[in-house]
């Protein structure tokens, strides 16, 4: 029995390793075929979706307000890079720290309720901070913060060079991705999964589940902030779009399309949704409707998502 599980474990981690290598190879050759700005943007969203997925997929918490961390980190990064002239690494760090603090406050409030209430509370808190962002003078209201300098990474690497920027984004993405992977496969992650399956049981086993949930929440918010900050540097803009509720909905959609609770799903989902947005921009008008249809179709027919379905078909873990 023990041997069997051990064998299965070895096998699953092999499939994940292969998928990971495939992903890295794809990222290495993609710029030759695909417009790099698009790739970088999609990677930022992929990291964002992974951060979100950490909560829904491995703790069972649906946050409907993740735009809060993504958007505010993006504002703080943009502002500190532009107004204070911080180098990109420190600017992103400022954004990440902001997201972590907001995550701690919002998380502490939201984990007091479960399930649907949790979703509504996170949404309401995010909406509140959206309204603050609309008013706050430093965000520039509807104009946003524009022409954010990319600057020199560590004072050495010129990020206005597209290749340098791309490599930086890929490194940040992979670091975030591996961090999340490490967390969900750690003993800490095992407790999170136990909470997802049956919180009452986890409590009775003596775990302080609230504390675990809060740590997971803060971690997720922080990585979402990393994604948001990076995006501000890549696209050189921070705007209200990133903090508004449709953004929270979009990240849910990305994770759902890719496959909730899979490691690679959110990445696939983010690429699909961003590509859709990009190419539908030429079609106009129907963007919202199509997103809605994808939502409904996923919930009714493909609850496993793209990667989840593939994993299910091949009987592997992804």
């Amino acid at each position, binding site marked *: 029995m023990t041997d069997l599980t051990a064998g299965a474990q070895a096998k699953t981690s092999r499939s994940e390793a292969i998928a990971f290598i495939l992903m890295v190879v794809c990222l290495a050759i993609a710029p030759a075929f695909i417009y790099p700005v698009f790739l970088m943007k999609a990677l930022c969203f992929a990291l964002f979706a992974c951060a979100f997925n950490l909560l829904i997929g491995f703790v069972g918490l649906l946050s409907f307000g993740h735009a809060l961390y993504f958007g505010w980190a993006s504002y703080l990064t943009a502002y500190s890079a532009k107004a204070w002239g911080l180098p990109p690494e420190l600017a992103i760090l400022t954004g990440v720290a902001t997201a972590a603090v907001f995550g701690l406050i919002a998380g502490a409030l939201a984990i007091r309720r479960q399930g649907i209430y949790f979703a509504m509370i996170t949404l309401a808190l995010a909406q509140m901070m959206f309204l603050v962002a*609309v008013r706050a003078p430093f965000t520039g209201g*509807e*104009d946003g913060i*524009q022409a954010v300098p990319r600057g020199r990474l560590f004072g050495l690497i010129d990020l206005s060079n597209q290749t340098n920027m791309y490599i930086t984004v890929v490194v940040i993405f992979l670091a975030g991705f591996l961090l999340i992977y490490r967390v969900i496969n750690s003993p800490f992650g095992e407790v999170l999964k136990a909470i997802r399956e049956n919180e009452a049981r986890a409590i009775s086993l003596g775990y302080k589940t609230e504390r675990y949930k809060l740590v997971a929440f803060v971690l997720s918010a922080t990585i979402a902030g990393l994604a948001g900050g990076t995006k501000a540097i890549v696209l050189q*803009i921070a*705007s209200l*779009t*990133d903090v508004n509720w449709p953004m929270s909905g979009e990240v849910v959609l990305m994770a759902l399309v890719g496959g909730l609770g899979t490691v690679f799903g959110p990445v696939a989902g983010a690429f699909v949704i961003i590509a859709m947005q990009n190419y539908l*921009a030429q079609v106009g008008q129907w963007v919202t409707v199509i997103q809605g249809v994808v939502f409904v179709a996923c919930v009714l027919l493909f609850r496993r998502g793209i990667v989840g379905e593939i994993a299910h078909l091949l009987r592997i873990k992804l």
Partner: protein
Amino acid sequence: MKRLMSLAAFSAMLMCGTAQAQQVTVKIGVMSDMSSLYADIGGPGSTAAAKLAIADFTKANPNVKVDLLSADHQNKADVGSSVVNQWFDVEKVDLVIDVPNSGVAFAVSEIARSKNKTFIVSGAAASDLTGGKCNANTVHWTYDTWMLANGTGKALVKTGGDTWFFLTADYAFGHALDRDTSAAVEANGGKVVGRVRHPLNTNDFSSFLLQAQASKAKIIGLANAGGDTINSIKAGAEFGIVKGGQKFAGLLVFASDVNALGLNTAQGLTLTESWYWDLNDTNRAWTKRWQAERAAAGKFPTMVQAGVYAGVTHYLKAVVAEKSAADGKAVVERMKSIPTDDPLFGKGTIRADGRKVHDVFLLEVKKPAESKYPGDFYHLRATIPAAEAFRPLKDGNCPLAKS
């Protein structure tokens, strides 16, 4: 040998000749909000206007070939900037036009500068586009916040509306409208007796209107836009604001907003626009063509859409004079040096800071009984001459204006 030479010379001459007679190729991208908040103001109607402009121009200049693209920026600065980046880098677009969202407009303006392309703003309102954040690749065509605030503020004070109360949307844009209008009101001898700052996207304005009513100001200035303006005026009609002798001044109101209110509710509202479809025969004729192109008989073009038509027309003239669209800065320079003249906005100029100047109109919404046909919205109350209509060049802090 000699013969061969002359043959070569001849064929070279021939090639030159044909090149001169034909082929200036231009690629234009209409970027607008096709699906949400500003879709009625710009949107598919702007694409239709651009098509008309291209059709008219290429009829007169068959040697110019124009490709037209359009895209929906979804009011997201990042979607807008990635599409525009791709347009410039991959699709080789020369001109981007419209962009009715100032957040997106600033982003596009910056990209156009860095890639030396041309950008004509028609839809966005921010006067900073030709102020502190101006650049040599951007032209702002139709209107801006300063023009709206100044036009309405000044004209109303002069006709006796000398005490004002502001309902101001509490964000940068609302503050700017409030600030510019207050300045115009006070400069002309009027007085601001109070203001209330309301959150963006408020549903119920009755509370704020009671405060405005209590202030006894003659004019209630609406330094807000879209749904907020509509909700303010709706609540105003209900609470008998206009019947009580107070008047609304819309600082950013479009014909589509008046349509949403209905004349019964909107009557008496005063506003400023730079183009109105029912102003003269040329506009009316163009409106008919636009409706056919847009396949929407009941819709009426806005000033933003008219601005797209005029902007494309003038741009193409400059490109022909320049013989190429490649150098955005040079084309814009040329656009500034030749005077503008188009059927919709008449004769005008583009200033050094990129601001297009033309006459603007103070309009008042008709009573339902006075409106004789669909789209018959306004009385023309005054024409503000181009020289007074826009912010003076020296006040804008645009670096281009100083040289």
